[in-house]
């Protein structure tokens, strides 16, 4: 596969490490949310046949975490974003 890195352009997927569902960005608050919320966060994943937003890490590159929107059936990649931008857009800050 080829991932079109938003900063570095098209790169072979072999340069990256895959983590999984980009929902991992949406971490509950460790002081206000409880075990239930963290259980959902840590364990429950959708398994779509189709578009999937997922985290890839450019380990043999610039160390960016990316959110890649990939069709799990065709492997077509329709969008690649910096995870940091996605996190900020979700309201994450410090």
């Amino acid at each position, binding site marked *: *596969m*080829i991932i079109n890195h938003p900063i570095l352009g098209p790169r*072979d997927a072999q340069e990256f*490490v895959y*983590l999984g569902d980009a929902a*991992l*960005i949406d*971490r*509950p*608050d*460790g*002081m206000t*949310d*409880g*075990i239930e919320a*963290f*259980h959902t*966060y*840590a*364990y429950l994943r959708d398994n779509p046949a189709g578009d999937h937003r997922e*985290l890839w*890490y450019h*380990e043999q590159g610039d*160390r*960016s*975490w990316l959110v890649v929107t990939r069709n799990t059936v*065709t*492997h*077509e*990649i329709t969008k690649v974003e*910096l*995870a*940091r931008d*996605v*996190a*900020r857009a979700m309201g*994450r*800050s*410090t």
Partner: protein
Amino acid sequence: MTQSNRISGGQIDRGQTLRFTFDGQGFTGHPGDTLASALLANGVRLMGRSFKYHRPRGPLTAGSEEPNALVELRSGARREPNTRATVAELFDGLEATSQNRWPSLRFDAMAVNDRLSSFFAAGFYYKTFMWPRSFWEKLYEPIIRRAAGLGSVSREEDPDLYDKGFLHCDLLVIGAGPAGLMAALTAGRAGARVILADEDFRMGGRLNAETFTIGQVAGADWAAGVVTELATMPNVRLMPRTTVIGAFDHGIHGAVERLGDHLAEPAAGKPRQILWRIYARRSVLAGGATERPIAFENNDRPGIMLAGAMRAYANRWAVTAGQRVAVFTNNDDGLRTAADLRAKGVDLVEVIDSRKGDMIVDSRGRLGLKSVTVQDSKGQRRDITVDALAVSGGWNPNVNLYSHHRARPVWDDTIVAFVPGADGPPGLTVAGAAAGVLSTHGALRTGRDAAIAALGLTGAAPDLPEAEDATPRITPLWHVPQGKGRAWIDQQNDVTVKDVKLAAQENFISVEHLKRYTTLGMATDQGKTGNVLGLAVMAELTGRSIPQTGTTIYRPPYTPVAMGTLAGRSRGAEFKPVRMTPSHHWAREQCAVFVEVGNWLRTQWVPKDGETEWRQSVDREVLATRRSVGICDVTTLGKIDIQGTDAGAFLDRVYANTFSTLKVGKCRYGLMLREDGLVYDDGTTARLAEHEYVMTTTTANAVGVFRHLEFCRQCLWPDMDVQLISTTEAWAQFSVAGPNARNLLEKIVDQDISDAAFPYMGAGNVTVCGGLRARLFRISFSGELAFEIAVPTRYGDALLREMLARGAEYDPVVYGTEALGVMRVEKGHVAGGELNGQSTALNMGLGKMVSQKKDSIGRVLSTREGLTDPEGYRLVGVRPVDPAARLTAGSHFLDIGAAAVAANDAGWLTSKVYSPHIGSDIALGYLKAGAGRIGQRMRAVNLLAGQDTEVEIVSPHFFDPEGERLRG
């Protein structure tokens, strides 16, 4: 032997004679020959024995789809089994051997299987080798493997080099027949970067095997002319002898280029094969088509081959398959073989055209065809004496690469075959016969159009030369109505019409079941000649159409790939990269023993003269360290520089304990959890300045922890002011431990490092040896007064030698990972065996380290009920009651007198060492409710090692439990 079947013409170099052997007998051929064409030229048609029934077989085809003529090539370490004689390029001195026969090809004792064929019908494995279960591994499998194997490997290391490479292009053209050549020519003249790959050593595809003309010249000459033009274009790369084995995602194709297979040995220093990864913006699949047989009784005898193959042998290789030849066809293309052979002066006895109601119903000739039985439309039978028979059941487009992304081909009634549909790999266009366009003109036209469309060309395209444009005419005939005998469908796997009938009868009618029940299409040829025939028979038996019956799809590789090619240079010592520590060269000089730790090679112990057993060295290293001073290279531990105004707050989030309160110039043990609440990693982290920390990780998790921290920084808290960089390889770091550690380092470090100036858990920047920048940490893994000192990596070797020289009066010892392990177990520190990814801080006795006052990764889930059981596993120390008794890591705790069954399992030993101080084996372990069992006796049981040892449960701190030494 003379080349008795050599006829006129052909694309061979008769001016040069090549000598080769087959089963020890000498033959001759010419450059341009394949092993199969040369053997056929010499009148040899028996080339192998079939997989299951050991039936005598000759070549069915003249290409890579060959199911029968599998041979071993070369000898010694270069011996290679299961190569197809039909694509093995002849060279002088080639040694070939038949396989899957004993004692000889002509007399094969295993051919008894053929007599017993009724026992070996489809599914016989599943029915016969069921019971008893204990026979599976020991009896059935060895027997089956011995009986059903093909060739054998040399068992010697492959002396040749294999490489990998990367190529990029605008257009990859797969196949250099008329369609591929036209596509490449169109794209090449337009200036595009083109790669033209073909599995054959001579480009031209079927044009080399036919007598067609293109424009005013012979097809083969037209092809040669195009290749010559393409070769002059700097933007075109011609890759003959290159098989594109797979179409992968986003235009990435795998290809195997055979650079040395046609030579006795690859050129000096050159690889034999290269596995290419080709990045293509667009690709054109012009892989041609494969002819299929018609099933009739005993249709597998040597001398019976596909009509197109027989034509190729005659036209390209100037070989006739026999002296008296017949043709059996259900389509017009088969008639071409008759015409071409006649033109070559071969005695063409008869054409049996099923469209006229004539059929071949049987054949004779044990080791080679002697006659066939023809049945005419009135049912009259007669035998005709022939030694070769050409069979054509129509052509199947080579849709393989098109369906590598799971696209299913669609049925075309006109050519009676599956053709590519619309849903192939993005960017891949199919042209020519592969697209179901079977005429030469059609191939040229679709090849040109495919290149124009793929590249969006708007300028002038090459003119299409005149070429034959016959409409294929075929009336399907899959198998001749059957009598008692067997009619082969898949010759490589010995699948017959009867087997398909049996599968249908037993309701294995889905194509996927049919394939697995009968093994149809599962062999190395992936059913290239047999699959569609098998489907057609199944369709007929179940009253469905072929498209209703469906088709299995194809997977990479298109043709078999040697394991060595896939491995490339990653074998032996070069299997993976090796990371060497800064003390590596010193350790080599001392003949140290090394151990692989991930990619690192670490010193395991350093034997001294007279030490014959590893324990002698390790015990000495431990005792010397605890007596005076020892030095250990700990560079492999991960080091991460963490800087920024939020560095402290960031560490509070990623560690279970608190770091923002750590004073500058101090370090602290840190425990890192995963979000699920289990322990991920540990290490010490020092605060070097207000906004600067340096973290250490375990060797094993150095990469993972860094990745995790970047995740936390970028994805969870994107606005924290914190920057990370891995400095694992920037600093050479040594542990200096033992009562004389400070005394030794005082001779190295320029600053005051007295206990007052550099107390326990102190950390800071210093200089050594008169000004070299260094970092000093007063931390201890061994329980001794200890420091870790770091210098820029390039000074690591010098620092070690300097410490040994300047500290000689303290008789310093360099210790390896074994002694390190002994001392940490003596001290009760957790490491790999305990940090096993399944354990909590509570299990390790470190529960209080998880701060509940702040949000940190893993805190919430570490409080889950299942992880906080007061009766759960706790870290304990273990020593045998009898000091002479041995312990084994992995042994399980059982109560005295309890049966050794899982229900009584109370935990296990995680790490075990021999402690020279205690004078016995000691171990750490996780024991249920372990904290309350200190002082009790239990058993450590290891059924695999046959050990059942009475042990005492003790504190994990075997040595200096009060920590007086390390604060000294």
